Every structure is written in structure tokens, then in C-alpha cells.
């Protein structure tokens, strides 16, 4: 749903300009240094990118999902690490509070998250609970009006920068599956909360991921999102429904850029006395990529519209995330192929994107988990 098209167009134009002038020129440097300069993050903050999805009453922009995605499609024309900086505040690091938080929790955290004053992080995955998230072991034991948290969270995006973690922990060991899980808001600096080393990743250098370790970490009972036990996993799943659509849009944005790079190369590069773009085998790769990007883009926007109409998008968001993440990897692979040897060389953005986009098939639910969700929903409907 687009509430005001011309306002959205002005936003899109602004983000396009910002991407072109302030992000793309620095993406290589950020990757090489494994760090985004503070000035750029400050500029992203000033521009208001952290507040895309947070409601207006909490100082965010309150964009509909379709609007948010229209902005993300542009932002992701630059390296995905820039999106990653705002990604947790716009998505999984803030959404739990938006969906289930008490008024007090919303007032305390959302305006700061919207302004980018603090970074939110989403701590669900564990060393032994990845795809099977409901089997998580981190425990939260009630002790008076506090809970004591113990466990390790793995591959937590933006954890080194985060000020507040949405930590999922088992409050009721009697219930083995999802029903025993609650979501806690744990602030940086809470005794017992510590971080592991930054992981060395295949790609997305400049974006940081590490373990979050909870060792007798005491938090007040008021830190449970919504102050209700046992709804945490459901919250996580609702968060992921929306954020999967967001990630699918990230994939479409990145794929658009990658294809753009490949196309530019194909029309410039000459072999056998003509631009390689005139060869039909190259054309086939360009055309397949273009079609698949168009398909994914259409899926993402349609899913977002459905979400904005308050419909259930569990199946559609998984379809979008599955297709778009697989698609962007194919597009990146073809781009490397079109560039030939140059596509394997660091000087070309395509080489970097090829490594960066591989993550999309893994996080926020692997492709296989998306397949399971889709199939499970299908079977549920007929049985």
C-alpha cells in the first residue's frame, strides 16, 4: 500500500542520490577495512534510514511494508552491508517491540531505535538451534521479580554495535517446543552479557556478526516483551514473516545492481570485434537475470501489499525469500560468468557481490526452511 505516491517518490530520489554519492563510492573501502566509517553511519542516521518501519507515534516514518520495500530496493543498489547497519532496527531488532511490546517498552526503545541512537539486535540462533529454532536451550529462570539468563547465541548480526538485544530464552523447561519460549529485551552492559569474537565471514565485510553470551545475566521481569511468558517464539515467527519479505527486497535490490554491472561490462567489452553483449549466449544470461529479477520484484511487492492489508503472509513471505535469495545468487553467478576472468578479480564489484549475496540463502531461515514452511502451510490448508 502506498499512502502518498509523490512523497514516496521524493524519498526514493533522495535515497538514490545518497546511494550514488555517499555509499557506492565507499563500498570497496568499507569491505577492505571491514568497517563502515562513522561519518557514513552518521549520515544514514541524519537521513532517517533507521526509522523506516517504526510507527510515526514513536518518531519513526511509519512506512507501509510496500513503501519500506520501495526504499530498500534503492538502498540495496549499494553493498548490502549498508542495509545491514539499519537492517536490525528496521526489521528483526525492533519489530518484536513494535508487535508485542508494552506501551512502556515502546516508549523507551522505539524513538531511539528510529533515530538510530541505539542499534537493536535479534538473538535467536544458537550453536545447536539454527533452523530448528524452537529447540533453543538458552534458559531464563525466574528469581523473584527478575529472570536469570544462561546460554549462547550465535551469528548475531550487528551484535558488536547493538545497545539492546531481543534475546529468546526458555522460561518454561516443561514445554519443549515453541510454547516455552519468551523474548527478553537485554541491554548492553547488563552484568553477565558478553560478546564473542567477530566472525570472519565469506562476504559482507564491514557488517559484523558475533556470539552473544549470557552467563547468569539478571534482567527484570519487565524486560519480557509484552511482559507475558511463552509468546516469544510466536513473536519471533511474526517478526520473521515480515522481515523475510524485507530480505527478499534486499536480494532484488542487490540483483538489480549486479545485473547493471554485468550489462555495462557486456556492452563495453569487445571480443571478436564486437561488444560481447551482441553474442546470444551472453544475451541469454542477461535476459534470464532480468526476467528473474522482475519476477522476484513482483512477488516482493505483492506480498508487501498483502501484509499492508493485514493478511497472513507466512506462505508468500517464504516464497519471496526463497525465490529472491536463490535468484540473486544465480544472477551474481551469471554476472561473474559474463565478466569472465575479471569477475573473479577484486577490482570488480561483481566479485564482492558474489560473496556478499551467498548469505541471503542462509540467514533468516535457510532456503530449505522456507520450503518446509511453504509446504507445511500448503498441507495445512487441505487437511
Amino acid at each position, binding site marked *: 500500500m502506498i499512502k502518498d505516491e509523490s512523497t514516496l517518490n521524493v524519498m526514493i530520489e533522495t535515497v538514490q542520490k545518497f546511494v550514488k554519492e555517499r555509499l557506492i563510492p565507499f563500498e570497496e573501502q568499507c569491505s577492505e577495512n571491514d568497517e563502515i566509517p562513522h561519518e557514513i553511519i552518521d549520515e544514514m542516521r*541524519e537521513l*532517517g534510514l533507521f526509522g523506516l518501519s517504526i510507527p510515526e507515534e514513536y518518531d519513526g516514518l511509519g512506512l507501509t511494508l510496500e513503501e519500506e520495500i520501495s526504499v530498500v530496493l534503492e538502498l540495496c543498489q549499494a553493498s548490502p552491508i549498508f542495509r545491514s547497519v539499519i537492517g536490525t532496527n528496521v526489521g528483526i531488532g525492533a519489530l518484536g517491540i513494535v508487535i508485542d511490546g508494552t506501551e512502556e517498552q515502546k516508549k523507551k526503545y522505539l524513538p531511539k531505535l528510529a533515530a538510530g541512537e541505539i542499534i537493536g539486535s535479534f538473538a535467536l540462533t544458537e550453536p545447536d538451534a539454527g533452523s530448528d529454532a524452537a529447540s533453543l536451550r538458552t534458559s531464563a529462570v525466574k528469581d523473584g521479580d527478575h529472570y536469570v539468563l544462561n546460554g549462547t547465541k550465535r551469528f548475531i548480526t550487528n551484535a558488536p554495535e547493538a545497545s539492546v538485544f531481543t534475546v529468546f530464552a526458555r522460561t518454561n523447561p516443561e514445554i519443549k517446543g515453541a510454547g516455552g519460549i519468551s523474548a527478553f529485551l537485554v541491554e548492553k552492559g547488563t552484568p553477565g552479557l558478553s560478546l564473542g569474537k567477530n566472525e570472519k565471514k565469506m562476504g559482507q565485510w564491514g557488517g559484523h556478526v558475533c556470539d552473544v553470551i549470557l552467563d547468569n545475566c539478571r534482567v527484570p521481569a519487565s524486560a519480557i516483551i509484552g511482559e507475558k511468558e511463552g509468546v516469544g517464539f510466536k513473536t519471533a515467527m511474526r517478526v520473521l514473516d515480515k522481515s523475510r519479505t524485507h530480505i527478499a527486497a534486499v536480494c532484488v535490490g542487490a540483483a538489480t545492481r549486479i545485473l547493471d554491472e554485468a550489462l555495462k561490462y557486456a556492452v563495453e567489452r569487445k571480443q571478436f570485434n564486437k*561488444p560481447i553483449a551482441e553474442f546470444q549466449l551472453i544475451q541469454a544470461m542477461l535476459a534470464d537475470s532480468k526476467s528473474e529479477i522482475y519476477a522476484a520484484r513482483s512477488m516482493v511487492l505483492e506480498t508487501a501489499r498483502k501484509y499492508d492489508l493485514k493478511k497472513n503472509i507466512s506462505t508468500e513471505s517464504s516464497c519471496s525469500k526463497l525465490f529472491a535469495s536463490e535468484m540473486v545468487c544465480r544472477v551474481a553467478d551469471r554476472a561473474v560468468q559474463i565478466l569472465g576472468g575479471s569477475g573473479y578479480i577484486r577490482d570488480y564489484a561483481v566479485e564482492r557481490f558474489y560473496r556478499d549475496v551467498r548469505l541471503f540463502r542462509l540467514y533468516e531461515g535457510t532456503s530449505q526452511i522456507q520450503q518446509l514452511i511453504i509446504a507445511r502451510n500448503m498441507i495445512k490448508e487441505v487437511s
Partner: protein
Amino acid sequence: MKILVCIKQVPDMESRFKPAASGVWYDESDLAWRMNEYDEYAVEQAVQLREQLGEGCELTVLSIGPDRVGEAIKKALAMGCDRGVHVQDDAAATKDPWQIAAIIAAYAKDQGYDLIFTGMQSQDRGSAQVGVTVAEDLGYACATTLVGFAYDNGTVTAKRELEGGIKGVVKLTTPALVTCQLGLNVPRYPTLPNIMKAKKKEIQSIPVSELLKEEPLAATVSFHPPAKKGGGIVLEGEVGALVDQLMGILKEKTTVLR
């Protein structure tokens, strides 16, 4: 104090331009539209002055064109203008600078603006006439090509860019109009929250027929790509081979390589 800034919406200059069916202007389909770059500096300077003067100062942004120019107006509002005026004209592109200036002057003449800002020229037409002609129509003091601006108590001190890096300093008594050159300031990005807030600002819509009484003085009879000059060699291909080719040419045709 009342300030007006006049802006134009133009295509992204990286676009590929092709003549429209009329043959006298570019085909407008498939173009991305932007605020004229010179006008961004005009808006920024006007907003800075608005901030300097604070309460009691009203800054209006005006643009002429079809519905799409509403986006350029919104951008200016998000940058800090107070209200917008949209002169509705689907055929603005066919009007000559004399007519465009006449439209602006007709709107501005009873409004009592103390200062009017415009870009030095548009990126698409590039006539550099409209601002000065508006000033002539209104009898305002005028200076063009500003790379420096200061305002104090009814006097504008303007630095005009002259040739060879020299600047000419002039003082204008208001009411005055200035045209802004690139580099005058650093235009701000309209932040996303300010773009949202701009929705609440008023945009007044005026049909062009209410303002335009002038006939054109010049006609564009053709719009076309430049004639290709012969002689230039175009080298394309793989970087290593290009370097060798260029080295060969430089050795042959110039004396700078030994």
C-alpha cells in the same frame, strides 16, 4: 520578510535524450526527474536565510509544469521551504524563457517578495534568462551567478563568479533577485522524516492560464543530437590492449613521450 525560490524539474542528466515526435524537444517518456541542480543551491541558500531570519519569515517555493513537478516542490518543502506554489502547465516545456519569466512575474508581482532566488540556469535548456527577466519584469535589483551570499537588514552582499576565478562583489538593495551558481553552498539532503513532514505543508495550485498573458518571442524549431565531428578515434576493448594502443598513438602524434 517574504522570500520566493523558483525551481525547475529536469530529467536526470545521465539519461539518454531522444527527440520527441514534435522534433522540437526531448521525448519525456522513461526519464527520471530531478530538481535542476542549480536550483538545489538556490533552495539551500533560501533555506539558510530562512533559518537565519527565523520567525516572521516566510519562504515559498514555486515551480511550473505538469503534476510530476509536485515532487520537486515537495523536495524543496522537505529541505525547509514553508509553502509551495505549483503553476499547473502540461505544456511548460514548449514555452520560451520570456513566457516562463512572465508567469513567475505575474504570480510574484502582488506578493511583495523581498528576495527571490533562482538557479543560474536550467540543466536542460540552459538559457540563463529566466531569473534576470523576472527581475526586469518586476523592477527588482538583480545579480547573477552567485558563489557567495550574505543578507543583512535589506542589503544583499553577493559574490558573482567572473572569469578566471575572480569574483565581483556587489551590493543589492531589496527587493532583489539573485541567480545561484553551483558551489554556492552545500545543498542538504531532504531527510526522510522531513519529507514525511512536508506532506502537511500547503501546496497552492494555480492554472497557468490565470498567469500567462504573453506570446513567445522565440521558437525552437529543432532538437537533435550534435553532429559527430570526424577525426576522433574511439578505442574500446580490454584495458591492457587499450593502454598499448594509446601509448602507440601518443608516441606517434605527440612529442611528450620520449
